[in-house]
């Protein structure tokens, strides 16, 4: 399977989980989120503007995350997203679901659980 299709297929199912996870520890702005995904996946996953922001807006609409404009001295203002308490619950349940899913796949395909 080529990298690009991994990218597309897996992103669909897991993008929400990725975003919520990255916001778990502290508020971040969009560019930061996209960089983190790229770095931590060692380049396997990349979110560009066109897919990242609509997803952020969607999560915000659902009330899972909340965006807030923050001005820091000497910089242009940026919009930071933080996890809401509802988002925290969703993250916990998605994370659990994901682990179950990966374990199940692993048992079937024989790929060792990391």
């Amino acid at each position, binding site marked *: 399977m080529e990298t690009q299709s991994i990218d597309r297929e897996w992103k669909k199912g897991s993008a929400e989980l990725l975003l919520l996870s990255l916001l778990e520890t502290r508020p971040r702005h969009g560019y930061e989120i996209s960089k983190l995904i790229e770095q931590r996946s060692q380049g396997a996953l990349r979110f560009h*503007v*066109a897919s990242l922001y609509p997803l952020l*807006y969607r999560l915000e609409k659902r009330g899972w995350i909340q965006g807030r404009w923050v001005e820091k001295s000497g910089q242009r203002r940026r*919009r930071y997203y933080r996890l809401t308490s509802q988002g925290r619950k969703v993250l916990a349940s998605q994370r659990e679901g994901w682990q179950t899913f990966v374990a199940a796949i692993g048992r079937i395909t024989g790929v060792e659980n990391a």
Partner: protein
Amino acid sequence: MPDWNEQIRQQLAVLKLAPAREAEIVEELAQHAEDRYRELQSSGATEAEARRITLEEISGHELLTRELEAVECTNAPEPIVLGAKNRAHFLTGLGQDLRYGFRTLRKSPGFTAIAMVALALGIGANTAIFSVVNGVLLRPLAYPDPDRLLNIFESNAEFGHYSVAYPNYLDWRRESHSFTDMGAFRSDDFNFTGSGEPEQVAGEYVSASLIPVLGVTPFLGRSFLPEEDRQGAACAVMLSYGFWKQRFAADRNILGRSLTLNAMNCAVVGVLPADFRFRENARVYIPIEQYNSVELRTRESHPGLGVIGRLKPGITIAAAQAEITSIAGGLSRLYPATNAGHGAAVVRVKDDMVGRIRPTLLLLVGAVGFVLIIACANVANLLLARSTARQREFAIRAALGADRGRVVRQLLTESVLLSLGGAVIGLLIARWGTSLVLAAAPGSLPRSGEIGIDPYVLLFTLVVSIVTGVLFGLAPAFHSANANPQESLKEGTRGAGGGRHRTEGVFVAVETGLAVILLAGAGLMMQSIWRLWRVDPGFNTRNILTTQFALSPKVMASPAAIQLAFQQLLERAAAIPGVQAAAITSLVPLGESDSENSFWPGTGPQPPQDRLTSALFYIVTPDYPSVMQIPLRRGRFFNARDNLASPPVIVIDDVMAKHVFPGQDPVGRQISLMVVGPVQIVGVVGHVKHWGLDSDDTNKIRDQMYFPVRQVPDKFLSEAVAGLTLAMRTGREPLSLVNAVRAQVAGPTRDQPIYAVQTMEQIISGSLAERRFTMLLLIIFAATALLLAAVGIYGVMSYAVTRRTHELGIRSALGASRSEIVGLVVRQGMKLAAIGMAAGLVAAVVLTRFMAGLLYGVRPADPSTLAVVILLLGGIALLACYIPARRATAVDPVVALRCE
């Protein structure tokens, strides 16, 4: 550095986001783009490369706009959040509206009652008429595949459609290939004896093929077998479900039992299903070959025989018509003496049944629709008045954040609630109204047994009431929703804006206009009926009692016994105190039946059928002219000496005298009659309007002949006996003699029943039944319209006076006299009524043309009728304006001015 803002804004333009939201997104994405651009440059990309990559990522092949559209522009699957606009919220709102609506309506019971009654009248009348239209016109006949059932008639130049000669039917059936099969039938009455009192029951002679052609399976037993429908076969009988239930207590062991009908013993072979309505009142069905008459064997006689065929699948009516025409053509070449000039015509059974009544019913549908519109206009006016009173309530709601849609919805819910309430009462009115309609139209409505309230009628009522509710609720609802909260909340504001009053004015004008149309229709029908009643039918219709009778089966054996029985019957009838003269006749003028015979002048051989002339053929006893008081113009009428031993004689009417012997004296001349042979004309009597008060003048057959019962050839006598009528001239109210007549006709053997007893006036009124029915309904509709319009005008004017109390008070303080104030108010109201009446007049002139076929002696748009309508309506409108105007003069200027 590139201007990312502009790039992104261009992309987002198609989404048409709210400006604030768009700016926010643009800012955030531009920030991202800038970060990315810098990063690319710092990792070694050229300026152009960095720019290209960033741009690509932003647009992502339109991924961005697509994704954003999904998120920003729809309310697509989102979790339910309180406070958002969504379905659940809508339903909660509806429940709220309903509860609130109920409460508001209950709080003003007077208003609610008046509005509901007006709507109930409108909806009820519409439901009643629709249930008639549904039962008569819309519902398919209760046979499988009813559209393939065709009536087949004989036809010629004199009659469009007429009854079929039995041998012709047999040939059609044998030769045609367009039909799966054909069946024949003939209505008759049967003397049912041997089971208590003798009773005359209506029945049908039917061919064995008829019931299978109709596709009907008997409820009990079986249909007739072909061998039961042969000359000389033992008599079999099938019973109607109703007859079986009433006379035989639904006895399931009826099959095989023997009934005595017309002195024949007939074995019951089957019972028809309850919904079998071939002839509404037929109770017994007997194979047609049991009709023991020479009439059935000749092509000359057309003894009231009907034929129905079932089209084969895939054959069109036109193809069947072409085939039957060619068969009839072959028969007229083969039998020129009887069949020359005879064709055949096919008509769908349902069209034949209901085609004549269709225009009348459609007219009524239109009229009753107008009534509903008037009712709607009235209720809309009431609601408008109320909405003004409630303006403060809606202003408060608006101030608290209710949007326009919410207010409109609340008001529409209320009006639909009102109309649904009206519909419930309306259904009761409809049930009662439908029976009224049926009672007003005895016999003149085909399929009347199928009229009733069924699911389609209920659906109709539901739809009509919801549509009505929305229609009359719209104007008031928008009026309220548009109210300016600030204005309304100010103390002491007198109703704002002229919009409402204009709308009211339009409603009043519409009501008045529609009332003009309905009154014009009703007026024209009343004039027609009135003129018809004044038509001279050619005889004295007062104090005549007619009844059909059956002779004792014992006398039917010999012609001499039959003649003797007639003579004794007449003697006994004439001896009844109060009876001045009695006669027997084969035909009653203005009744349903007719019978013709063909003749040719002189005593030569019979010319071919198509050169014969037909005349109505009355077979009567000598006192017939004295009973009917038909004037004798020339010569003499029959007497007891005109019998089989003397030369055959005939009396003709003056129309035939003029037609056959123009400018000559027909008395003493000879003509020849079919079947009878040469006869001598001995007298001329006045013409009688046999075909109907209205249609006699235009009928193709107007010549009339009278032939003595005593001279009927023996072989025809027994069939001539069927359907004879005893007619008596009485010196007192005819119906008071019915019991005496019944006793005297029954005779010493008590086995001669009388049936279908009617006075001549009842017969005439029956001949006008359809018109009377239309007239009655139009009068009811017009009266309702008049009442509603009067109430409408009165309501609007009363309200106007209340609204103008202040102004009128100032006027009278400044010296306006009472009559000036009255004039002021009346003028205002009459202006609206006059506009309505003018428009109504124009519409009436156009619309009454559609009822031309129902009118007699009066043209549609008859100026005198319209003048009366305008005077009547104008008078009522004036009254409806005057009463509130009078009240206006009672306004005390001091009180009026203080009320601010």
